[in-house]
């Protein structure tokens, strides 16, 4: 069918700039409304304060037993911080991918959002912003608790803030893209997978040098750790916060900060492209199979 000039196309600017921006900000607003709807403040406290502290406490006890109480060792700071920042991994990935389930199954709005002129990846990432913010509370609480009660050797005066913030920002972008991949998978699965983000985060926990050096892994599993951008991300965050203590983890001690940044940047770019491609492919599949508005009975 031929189309006459009377049907005007959306302008490039509308499509490439305005749409992604308003998708992102509106979604972030919605995500925050949902996340901050603490009808039960107690539940919120459990989730974002008590749970992370309990997680850290278990780690501390285990560490204490294994090392016979070597809390002064730089290794301890390293493990403690790795664990604390790992909170972001599950939260951001879940925040992004969860929106698919939430909108499709719970609010039954996914089809209306999907047919709106939105930019789906930006919408989903926007939905994850609120979880990033609550995760930040958890991270801060965990670190503060460590400093107050466990004599965590962290001197805020010597922190390399620019490096810390840059690494954090890059990591969040990375996690958002990983969340997008999971969102794509979630979109394609007719049955709901409630905690796919947490599940994946849990699986990657051991491969990212969060609580022990990659050297501890058997030889054949080590490459998985080196391919994980999270490994470099955590290393950078720790170096920014506690400087050369970092070398207590041998894994990356021969790599400079600049090199670490380069690797993280490269892997983030690769994951970003993969995330978009994978999401679009899953979206296409879901449209072919009629899964966009599929509601499972639960």
């Amino acid at each position, binding site marked *: *069918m031929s189309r006459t000039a009377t*049907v005007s196309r959306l302008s490039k600017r509308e499509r490439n700039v305005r749409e992604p921006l308003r998708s992102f900000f509106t979604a972030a607003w919605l995500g925050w409304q949902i996340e901050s709807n603490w009808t039960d403040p107690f539940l919120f406290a459990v989730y974002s304060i008590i749970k992370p502290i309990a997680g850290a406490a278990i780690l501390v006890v285990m560490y204490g037993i294994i090392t016979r109480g070597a809390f002064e060792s730089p290794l301890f700071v390293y493990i403690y911080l790795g664990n604390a920042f790992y909170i972001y991994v599950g939260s951001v990935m879940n925040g992004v991918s969860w929106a698919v389930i939430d909108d499709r199954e719970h609010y*039954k*709005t996914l089809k209306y959002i999907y*047919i*709106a002129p*939105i930019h789906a990846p930006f919408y989903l990432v926007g939905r994850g912003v609120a979880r990033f913010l609550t995760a930040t509370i958890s991270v801060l609480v965990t670190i503060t608790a460590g400093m107050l009660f466990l004599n965590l050797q962290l001197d805020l005066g010597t922190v390399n803030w620019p490096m810390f913030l840059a690494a954090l920002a890059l990591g969040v972008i990375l996690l958002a893209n990983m969340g997008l991949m999971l969102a794509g998978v979630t979109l394609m699965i007719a049955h709901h997978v409630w905690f796919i983000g947490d599940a994946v985060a849990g699986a990657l926990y051991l491969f990212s040098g969060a609580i022990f050096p990659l050297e501890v892994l058997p030889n054949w599993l080590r490459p998985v750790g080196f391919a994980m951008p999270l490994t470099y991300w955590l290393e950078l965050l720790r170096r920014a916060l506690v400087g050369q203590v970092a070398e207590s983890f041998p894994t990356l001690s021969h790599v400079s900060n600049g090199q670490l940044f380069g690797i993280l940047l490269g892997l983030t770019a690769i994951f970003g492209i993969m995330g978009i491609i994978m999401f679009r492919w899953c979206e296409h599949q879901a449209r072919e*199979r009629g899964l966009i508005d599929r509601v499972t009975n639960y």
Partner: protein
Amino acid sequence: MSKIPAIQTDTLTRIYKIRGGKKSDPKELVALKDVTIEVPRSELFGLLGPNGAGKTTLIKVLTTLLAPTLGRAFVAGYDVTKEPHEIRARINMVSGGESSGYGLLTVRENLWMFSQFYGIPSREANRRIKELLEVVGLGDRINTKSSDLSSGLRQKMNIVRGFMTDPEVLFLDEPTLGLDVGAARDVRRFIRDWMDESKDRTILLTTHHMVEAEQLCDRVAIINEGRVLACDKPTALKQQLQQAAIYHLQISPLDGITPETFERIRGVHHFTYRSQDGSATLEFILEEDDVLATVLNQLTAHDIHLLNLEKREPSLEDVFIHLVGMSMEEVERGEVD
């Protein structure tokens, strides 16, 4: 005004693959088969058919929720497969009989949020929201959490969501499903008024209510088992049946004879039988008036009293029966069995 049809489909087919057991090959269900329709701008087009006919499937394809299996479909001149993005900026959709929405947001917040996806400036959005909520009688609920609304009121909120963006093409999937009689009437009037306000608007509405199709729609396509069987103005569709004679009989209870006896009379095109306490109703579509004599003879022969006899004008229901050989209700019952 452009001559591009608001909606156009060309031998559109949609097949669902149903994955059964692990081993067995997926079964195929043809939900739409070679659907070719064209809806010009400014038309209120109705899709009439029983449950399972394929109405929702057609709407899903046109609203870019579902990919066509074969054939092509265009909305506002854009291909649903190749340019879904262009379409989304120009359409909206409302499905009846479901309660979607963010329960923790107020009615205004729910609607405002959707308006933002369409890039409507907040001020303008709030103005439209307020105005439309007044029209559907939800004005005093604007700050109510949507979880506190009854399902009927939620549906009205949803209807406002669809109209609020002033789409070029609006898809309404059984918009009055689940509403009480009064609310359904309000919604129908609202739909008609909205269409009459501007020549640039087009609606595709699905329904399995004859009356809704007849009263509301400029043109109606009758659809069954994924096929469009007829498509015309309601009056023109009924014209096809001008020859047929439609009779409504009320009689004393059938005694000593089964309803099937009437079905077997030659010239009876379609027959339904319903019994209430103390009496029974028979409904006939006869090929011509003369056949009525045979029917009445049967009644007399079995000593059945005729309490009332009416000749009816053909309705769209009769058109459906004429085309399918069954009433929509019978088709739906067959589906369940």
